[in-house]
């Protein structure tokens, strides 16, 4: 998004940077590409689409229009059993014994199929989840393909990944993923698991199952052996049944800390390995000597990327006193220029909130912020009448004890505090049970190393924010989770060393 806004800067007239407030100055530029979307999707088990054993379905809704996009079968416990059984058989008979080199070729093939149909997938992702097409087109889907491409190459090189040890697969992985980056999270889970020789049962989130079902079609086209990947959309009960299934060897979960704790409790006393990628409340630090205009872009990218539905969002902003007034003034001015609206419009910066339920949670926490005495400011965009939307929002005069500072909002809401000294900034930054990510802006190199080292979090962006790459390990300290996804470190959760 940072790069996008740079591109946009070139287009706008140099004299008045504000003429596109409310999107004025941009003609609508909807992404138009033919997509293939069925009216209904079954569960993908053992290489085939099948109806749920209960016969139940649920609607996947476009949050920008509230239209039903497709009916999706809803997995129940019997379906989980069926999927795990298929995965076990595929592990024992096909995928486990297959040489790494051959496994890798299947994954390369899948990566290519995704690249070929990337635009179609981007459109469906934006329709199903509400995220701007620019993000799904330029971030989500390219990263999906890159992730499969990266881990494909590891499949026959695992002997080089763990010094002094050999690695073998664990067996069947049960994976539960969230709705904020639906296909990307599927890729983060599937690619390393498959590369290491495990088979998978994946449960997508109930509000965003469509790209996962489209991925199942590609898995068929890639002729990946049946049962190696099983995709079973459903609700929390299906996720719980998968996690607790006795024949699952490995659990991987991305979602809230609350559910993560339940999962860690559920696998206690079993031999299951698990990785958890949970909530966050990232501190984003702006020092007096920061490049202010770039930092403002970084703040915007940090909290408004994907409507703030990002576990590593820079939701707590700490600005050093010397530049606080300037940063907040420029930030407000920039927020006024954000285009909120049609996710399929290529000009859109902020799309739809993922669901009515999530919108309610954002409103609830914003209300608590006002009640607790923080000062609310929202930009002046008009919001579309239909669908779920929320204005870019910031709070000043916030305290460490405020709920909007302590709790993950998962929406476009920024809580701003100021600080005087480096020590104070670090203390405040670490004053949270979370530890997923953090950000630092300063032009002084030695300060970057001092501060990035002191922040207790798994990913730190210095003079940038919200960057992702398949080669780069991602994951949290403290209550933000266990284990890493991405990079060489992302292999470890899917193997047993001997």
């Amino acid at each position, binding site marked *: 998004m940072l790069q996008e806004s740079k591109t946009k800067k070139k287009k706008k007239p140099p004299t008045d940077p504000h003429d596109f407030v409310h999107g004025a100055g941009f003609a609508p530029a909807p992404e138009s590409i033919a997509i293939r979307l069925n009216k209904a999707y079954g569960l993908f088990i053992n290489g085939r689409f099948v109806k749920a054993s209960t016969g139940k379905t649920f609607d996947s809704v476009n949050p920008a229009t509230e239209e039903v996009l497709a009916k999706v079968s809803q997995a129940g416990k019997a379906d989980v059993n069926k999927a795990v059984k298929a995965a076990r058989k595929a592990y024992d008979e096909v995928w486990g014994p297959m040489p790494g080199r051959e496994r890798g070729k299947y994954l390369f093939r899948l990566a290519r199929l995704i690249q070929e149909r990337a635009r179609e997938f981007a459109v469906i992702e934006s329709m199903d989840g509400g995220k701007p097409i620019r993000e799904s087109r330029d971030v989500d889907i390219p990263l999906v393909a890159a992730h499969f491409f990266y881990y494909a190459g590891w499949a026959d090189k695992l002997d080089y990944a763990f010094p002094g040890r050999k690695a073998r697969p664990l067996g069947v992985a049960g994976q539960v993923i969230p709705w904020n980056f639906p296909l990307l999270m599927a890729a983060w889970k599937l690619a390393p698991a498959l590369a290491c020789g495990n088979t998978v049962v994946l449960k997508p989130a109930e509000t965003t199952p469509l790209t996962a079902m489209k991925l199942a079609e590609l898995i068929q086209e890639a002729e990946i052996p049946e049962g190696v990947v099983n995709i079973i959309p459903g609700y929390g009960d299906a996720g719980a049944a998968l996690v607790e299934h006795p024949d699952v060897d490995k659990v991987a979960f991305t979602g809230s800390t609350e559910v993560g704790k339940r999962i860690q409790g559920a696998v206690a006393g079993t031999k299951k390995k698990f990785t958890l990628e949970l909530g966050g409340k990232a501190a984003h630090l702006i020092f007096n000597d920061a490049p202010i205009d770039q930092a403002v872009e970084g703040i915007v990218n940090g909290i408004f990327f994907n409507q703030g539905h990002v576990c590593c969002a820079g939701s707590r902003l700490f600005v050093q006193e010397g530049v606080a007034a300037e940063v907040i003034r420029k930030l407000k001015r920039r927020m006024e220029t954000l285009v909120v609206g049609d996710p399929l419009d290529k000009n859109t910066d902020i799309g739809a909130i993922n669901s009515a339920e999530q919108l309610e949670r954002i409103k609830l926490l914003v209300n608590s912020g006002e009640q607790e005495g923080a000062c609310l400011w929202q930009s002046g965009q008009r919001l579309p009448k239909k669908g779920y939307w929320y204005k870019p929002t910031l709070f000043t005069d916030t305290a460490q004890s405020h709920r909007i500072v302590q709790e993950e909002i998962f929406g476009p809401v920024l809580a701003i505090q100021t600080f005087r000294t480096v020590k104070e900034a670090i203390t405040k930054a670490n004053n949270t049970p979370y530890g997923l990510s953090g950000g630092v802006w300063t032009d002084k190199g030695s300060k970057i190393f001092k501060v990035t080292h002191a922040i207790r*979090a798994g*990913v730190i962006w210095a003079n940038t924010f919200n960057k992702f*790459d398949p080669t780069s390990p991602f994951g949290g300290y403290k209550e933000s989770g266990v284990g890493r996804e991405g990079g060489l470190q992302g292999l470890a959760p899917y193997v047993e060393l001997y």
Partner: protein
Amino acid sequence: MSRVAVRKTYKLYIGGKFPRTESGRYYPLYDPEGKLLANVCQGSRKDFRNAVVAARKAQVGWSAATAYLRSQILYRIAEMLEGRAGQLRDELVSLGSTPRSAEKEVMTAVDTLVYFAGWADKYSQVFSTVNPVASSHFNFSMPEPTGVIAIFAPQETGLSGLVGAIAPVICGGNSCVTLASETRALPAITFGEILNSSDVPGGVVNLLTGSVEELLPHMSSHMDVNGVAYYGEDAQAIQVIQANAALNIRRVGIYDTVKEDPYRIMTFMETKTTWHPVGV
């Protein structure tokens, strides 16, 4: 008349000091002939909590120490331990070990410390990566210590198990509170004296004696503990530790025995990834 020997009082080791348990409780340890060896402190929940405060306070400075310094301090412990080998041998024998196995245990403990001393300035090189991201950024990942670790030392061995459980944890810059073997507690406190004269900052290693059964619920549920290492095979204890770990997503290491292995260091390390743009 022959000289009357001066016996030692065995106390706890918390924050670099040797307090008695705040609870005033004790349990006796006898030699194979039934002679009283010591009234050992029956450490309490409160002792554990005090030790966690000391460990938390010490952890920041310990992890900020250079890898070279941590390496030298671990080696220094080995030197001190070698120097007190005779005393530890005697203690192990008094607790029922044969002289030969006592000798072996002390030497193993010394060698384990030397082994991990050597790792302190190397694991970071072996387990770090520079990541070739497809954008104009410099991106690297390296291990950092998890924080304060509660350790249930192996029960069967009084010294080599204790040392083998502690060494990988502090090697990576963590601090720890360690519950010694209940029945073989004497060498643990003597090891505390060795630590106290080895330049290990007070609070980095805290040693408790007492009952696993009594302390397990507390040591596994303290909210300022970031990780738990358990040496043993009691399925119920393991279940409690793993279930309580969910309270704050605590890291857990379950092992049968100690082992010279750099992956034991990594159990209580976090990977931090840092990004910075490349440009002018």
